[in-house]
C-alpha cells in the first residue's frame, strides 16, 4: 500500500473562534502531534509608529493609547514618562499615584479577561462568564473615575487629566472589596477544579533557562521562576509601595495561571496602598510646546510583561522616531518553542498561555 506523507498542514487563524484577534499559524501536524509551527503576521499592522510625523507629541498620547485597548493606560503612561524625561519635567506626586491606581486596575481587568478567554479555549464556558462578570466591576470603576470603559486616556504629558476625590476613592475601595470576594471564589475554582488542572498542568512547559534565553517577559517569565518585574525599578510611585514580584516555579500553563491570579490580589493591594498614601496637590503641570533634542528609553510593566519605549527628537513639536517593543513580541519566541510536540487540541491553550496581544505587537 502506498501511504501519503504522514504530515499535513493546518491553518490556524486569522479568523478563529478562540482568538479574538487575528494571528495566523501554519501548523504542520503528524497525526495529532504538532511538529512545526510557522507564524504569519501583519493582519493588524496599521503603522502607528510613523504617525509621530503627523501628530505632535501631545496628540501622540492618544494614538499610543489606541495601540491596544486592553492595556491602553500603560501605553500612555510609558509614552508620557519617556516624553517627560526628555523634557525634564517633574510630574506631581499625586499624578504618580493616580497613574499607579489606573495601571493596576487595568492589570486586574486584563488578567480577568485573559482568564475568561483561557477558560473559553478549553470549553469551560461557565468560568468565562464568571470571570467576565467580576471584570464588569472594574469596568464600572474605570468608567466612574475616568469617563470611559475601555480606553480611558487618563495620561497626558505632565501628569494625568482627572483626579479621584476622597468620596470617589472611598467608593472605589468598597467596590474593590467586592472584586476581591469574587477573585477569592475564582481562586478556589482554579485551585480545585479537575478540568482546569487536566487542561493546564504540564502543558506548555518552559524551563527557567529557556524562558530566560528566549527573552520571555511578564507572567510567562515569572511562571518559570525568574523574578523580573519592571515595577521593581520604581517608576511612577511604585518605589514607595510595598510589593514583591509574584513567582511560580513549575513553568507550565497552570503556573502562569496562578501567577496571574496572585497578581490580581497584588494589584488590589497596590491600589489600596496607592490610595491611602496619595498626597494632596496638583495633578499635572504645564508643558512647553516644543521638545528639546535627545533620546530616551522607558520600560513599564504591562499585564503581559515589560513594554519598551524609545523616543528620539531633534527639537520641534514632533518626535523623529518612536519605537515600541511590546511584551507579546518578546513572548512569541517562547510560544514557538512550546508548540512543537504538543497535541492539536492543546494549541488554543498554548496560544493563550502567553496572553497574546496582537494589536500591540503589530501596531
Amino acid at each position, binding site marked *: 500500500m502506498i501511504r501519503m506523507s504522514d504530515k499535513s498542514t493546518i491553518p490556524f487563524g*486569522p*479568523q*478563529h*473562534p*478562540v482568538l*479574538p*484577534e*487575528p494571528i495566523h499559524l501554519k501548523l504542520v501536524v503528524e497525526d495529532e502531534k504538532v511538529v512545526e509551527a510557522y507564524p504569519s503576521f*501583519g*493582519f*493588524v*499592522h*496599521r*503603522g*502607528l509608529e*510613523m*504617525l509621530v510625523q*503627523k*501628530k505632535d507629541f501631545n496628540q501622540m498620547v*492618544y*494614538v499610543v493609547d*489606541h*495601540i*491596544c*485597548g*486592553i492595556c*491602553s493606560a500603560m501605553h500612555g503612561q510609558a509614552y508620557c514618562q519617556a516624553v517627560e524625561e526628555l523634557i525634564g519635567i517633574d510630574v506631581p506626586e499625586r499624578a504618580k499615584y493616580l497613574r499607579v491606581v489606573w495601571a493596576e486596575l487595568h492589570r486586574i481587568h486584563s488578567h480577568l*479577561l485573559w482568564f*475568561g478567554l483561557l477558560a473559553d479555549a478549553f470549553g469551560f464556558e461557565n468560568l*468565562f*462568564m464568571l470571570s*467576565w*462578570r467580576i*471584570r*464588569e466591576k472594574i*469596568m464600572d470603576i474605570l468608567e466612574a473615575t475616568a469617563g*470611559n*470603559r*475601555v*480606553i480611558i486616556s487618563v495620561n497626558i504629558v505632565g501628569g494625568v487629566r482627572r483626579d479621584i476625590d476622597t468620596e470617589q476613592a472611598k467608593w472605589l475601595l468598597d467596590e474593590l472589596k467586592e472584586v476581591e470576594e469574587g477573585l477569592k471564589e475564582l481562586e478556589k475554582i482554579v485551585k480545585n477544579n479537575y478540568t482546569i488542572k487536566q487542561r493546564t498542568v504540564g502543558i506548555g512547559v518552559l524551563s527557567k533557562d529557556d524562558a530566560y534565553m528566549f527573552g520571555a517577559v511578564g507572567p510567562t517569565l515569572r511562571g518559570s521562576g525568574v523574578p523580573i518585574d519592571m515595577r521593581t525599578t520604581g517608576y511612577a510611585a511604585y518605589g514607595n509601595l510595598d510589593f514583591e514580584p509574584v513567582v511560580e516555579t513549575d513553568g507550565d500553563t497552570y503556573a502562569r495561571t496562578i501567577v496571574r491570579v496572585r497578581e490580581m490580589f497584588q494589584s488590589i493591594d497596590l491600589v489600596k496602598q496607592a490610595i491611602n498614601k496619595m498626597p494632596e496637590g496638583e495633578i499635572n503641570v504645564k508643558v512647553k510646546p516644543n521638545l528639546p533634542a535627545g533620546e530616551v528609553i522607558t520600560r513599564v510593566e504591562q499585564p503581559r510583561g515589560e513594554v519598551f519605549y524609545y523616543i528620539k527628537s531633534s527639537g520641534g513639536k514632533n518626535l523623529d522616531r518612536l519605537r515600541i517593543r511590546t511584551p507579546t513580541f518578546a513572548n512569541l519566541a517562547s510560544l514557538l518553542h512550546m508548540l512543537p510536540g504538543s497535541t492539536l487540541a492543546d494549541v488554543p491553550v498554548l496560544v493563550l498561555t502567553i496572553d497574546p*496581544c496582537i*494589536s500591540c505587537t*503589530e501596531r
Partner: protein
Amino acid sequence: MGLKEFVEKSFKKSPWVLHYNCSSCNGCDIEILACMTPLYDMERFGMVNVGNPKHADILVVTGTVNHKNKEVLKNIYDQMPEPKVVVAVGVCAATGGIFREAYNVLGGIDKVIPVDVYVPGCPAKPEAIIDGLYKAAEILKEKYEKMGKAEEVLK
C-alpha cells in the same frame, strides 16, 4: 408548525453572529465580548456567537482595513450564506478613526464590503453594540422576506 415556518421563525428570532477583528485596537472587540457576558447578555435576543462564517447571518467587524486583511475580510464575507448583514463597530470600522492617517490603513470597512449598520464610539459601548445588532436583526428579516419574494417570482 410546519418545517418551513419553523425554519423561518428560528432564522428571524435567532440570528447567529460572527465577529472578525480587522485591524482594531482590541477596545471594540472586548466590548463585543462583554456583550455576551452576564451583565449585557446579548443572547436574550437569540444572538449566538459562532466561529464559522458558513453558519453566520450577521458579520460584526471592528477596526480598519489594511492591505493584508482586506482579502481575509472579503473572503469571510463571501463565505457567508445569503441573506447576510454587516455591522461595523467603532469609528475606525466606519472611517478609519484615529488610525486614518497611518500608512497601512485603507479606511473604513465599507471600502471592501457593503455595510448595513454603523455603531459609533471609540470604543462603542456595549449598549450601543446591542442596539446595532438588534437593528441588524431587523434588516436581516427584511432581506429574508425580499429573498422569499424573489424566489416566488422565479417560480
